């Protein structure tokens, strides 16, 4: 346990001292502010363009915005935050392979599986922290401007999207174990998510694809209950466990 904690402490120090932590937190706060800000600015923007739109036959009438507009925007923005997160951390393993920094800690007796676990736990913690911060900022602004009660199943929807992020992180761990460079890791994550998205288009497979976890719209509108996502949640959790479990023997056999 002590070596794992020591390694995680080193990972935290690295994230803070290389400036990644600061960038991440700013990014998540920014995305958190952006959703209510866009919702708030929509009527003003529409008004500005109303003349131009009237010329093309579109008449802008009284535009209503509420917490739902902001939450819809939130779930539209969060994929970009996840992409940024993946890009920032895509070299978390590969940088250590390339520089050879892992060599010394491994020869000190750190078990390789603890490297995988330490990095995975750190990635999950920072994702949870960042995502939670982003959600909290949006929630705060929304309750100040409007009423959050309008969005049904808000917390289940947020949790479902968080789980999607967890799956992407587990994919990052798996591809980092398999590949040597971070560009490859990012591309493979993108490819796998795209594949899951394509599968989710097929009606029979749809309910099982992790990509479904990104569609939180119907949950918010109350058209669907969280129970409709159960199959996808179970599959995603299983895939996460598989990804991390496969990474361990792969790293064990890696020649450094």
């Amino acid at each position, binding site marked *: 346990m*002590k*070596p794992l*904690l*020591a*390694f995680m*402490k*080193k990972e935290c*120090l*690295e994230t803070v*001292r*290389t400036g990644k932590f600061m960038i991440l937190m700013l990014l998540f706060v920014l995305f958190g502010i952006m959703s209510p800000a866009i919702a708030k600015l929509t009527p003003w923007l529409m008004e500005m363009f109303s003349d131009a739109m009237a010329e093309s036959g579109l008449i802008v009438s009284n535009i209503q915005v509420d917490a739902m507009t902001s939450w819809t925007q939130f779930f539209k923005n969060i994929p970009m935050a996840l992409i940024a997160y993946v890009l920032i951390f895509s070299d978390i393993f590969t940088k250590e392979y390339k*520089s*050879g*920094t892992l*060599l*010394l*800690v*491994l*020869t*000190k*007796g*750190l*078990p*390789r599986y603890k490297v995988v676990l330490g990095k995975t736990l750190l990635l999950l913690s920072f994702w949870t922290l960042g995502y939670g911060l982003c959600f909290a900022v949006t929630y705060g602004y929304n309750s100040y401007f409007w009423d959050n009660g309008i969005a049904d199943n808000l917390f289940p929807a947020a949790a479902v999207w968080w789980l999607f992020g967890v799956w992407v992180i587990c994919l990052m761990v798996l591809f980092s174990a398999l590949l040597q460079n971070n560009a490859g890791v990012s591309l493979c994550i993108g490819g796998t998510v795209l594949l899951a998205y394509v599968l989710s288009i097929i009606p029979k497979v749809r309910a099982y694809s992790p990509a479904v976890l990104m569609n939180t719209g119907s949950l918010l509108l109350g058209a669907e209950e969280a129970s409709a996502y159960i199959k996808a949640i179970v599959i995603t959790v299983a895939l996460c466990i598989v990804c991390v479990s496969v990474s361990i023997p792969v790293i*064990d*056999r890696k*020649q*450094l």
Partner: protein
Amino acid sequence: MDVLAIQNLKKNFGSKKVLCGLDLSVPEHSIFGFIGKNGAGKTTTMKAILGLLRVDSGEIFCMGEKVHFGQTNTNRYIGYLPDVPEFYSYMTPTEYLTLCGEICGMDRADIITRRKELLELVGLGHERRRIKGFSRGMKQRLGIAQALLGRPKLLICDEPTSALDPAGRKEILDILLRVKEQTTALFSTHILSDVERICTEAAFLNNGKIAMQGTIAELRNRRSSDGFIIETEKKEAADTLIKVFGGLQRTGQNALVFHGDEDRLFDIMQYVAENRMPVQKIERIEPTLESLFLEVTT
């Protein structure tokens, strides 16, 4: 007792045979020089000892325990310094040694005393900067400190002096000499003067095998002499000797060198005495590790 024993180690990279049945034993409390040309397989052997590389066949024992690829418990006996040690550059030396100590499972009080002791030993005791700003020599010295942290039975240094300037080299060699009492050091190199300066034993690696192994004195005695230098007082005497005795080479105006046994030297001396040729000096060329190395590797 042997700290390290390697038996019939073989490793190929594709079609290239790097190690072809390497046998090596390192006795306790020795400073063991592992000598070989660039690309001879020194680093490969060291990585195999650390379980970082899968070997094709053969066995490695460290303190009597077998080394396994991947996760090996024998690393608890070993301190390793790679040729170019890479550290987490955002840490200070103290933080880095603390991390290493915690990974080794040392207790806090021990880490504090040991890191202070070692940083003093390698001359980084007052260094508060992060590793990012360190020179190569400083990194190498920190590398030795981290390798010695867990009081290893075997210290493995992969070409620790190759990339350093003379001052840096001297510092590293002095540190290795100082730790001789605490541990056994195996260090690879192709700088033979370093071996002659600090090693008690050495082995020559050539064509994937150990071509020669023994104490430095034993290795030197393998070759009785590399030849003789004869310096005459007058140039004419040297010219005469060249004419009379074949195989003499001129190295200076009056200086001649010849490679051969002592009988030949006596013949020359007799000729010199009979013809009353004034001689400035006759000197035996002592065999050096360099000449031995060249003999073994060519």
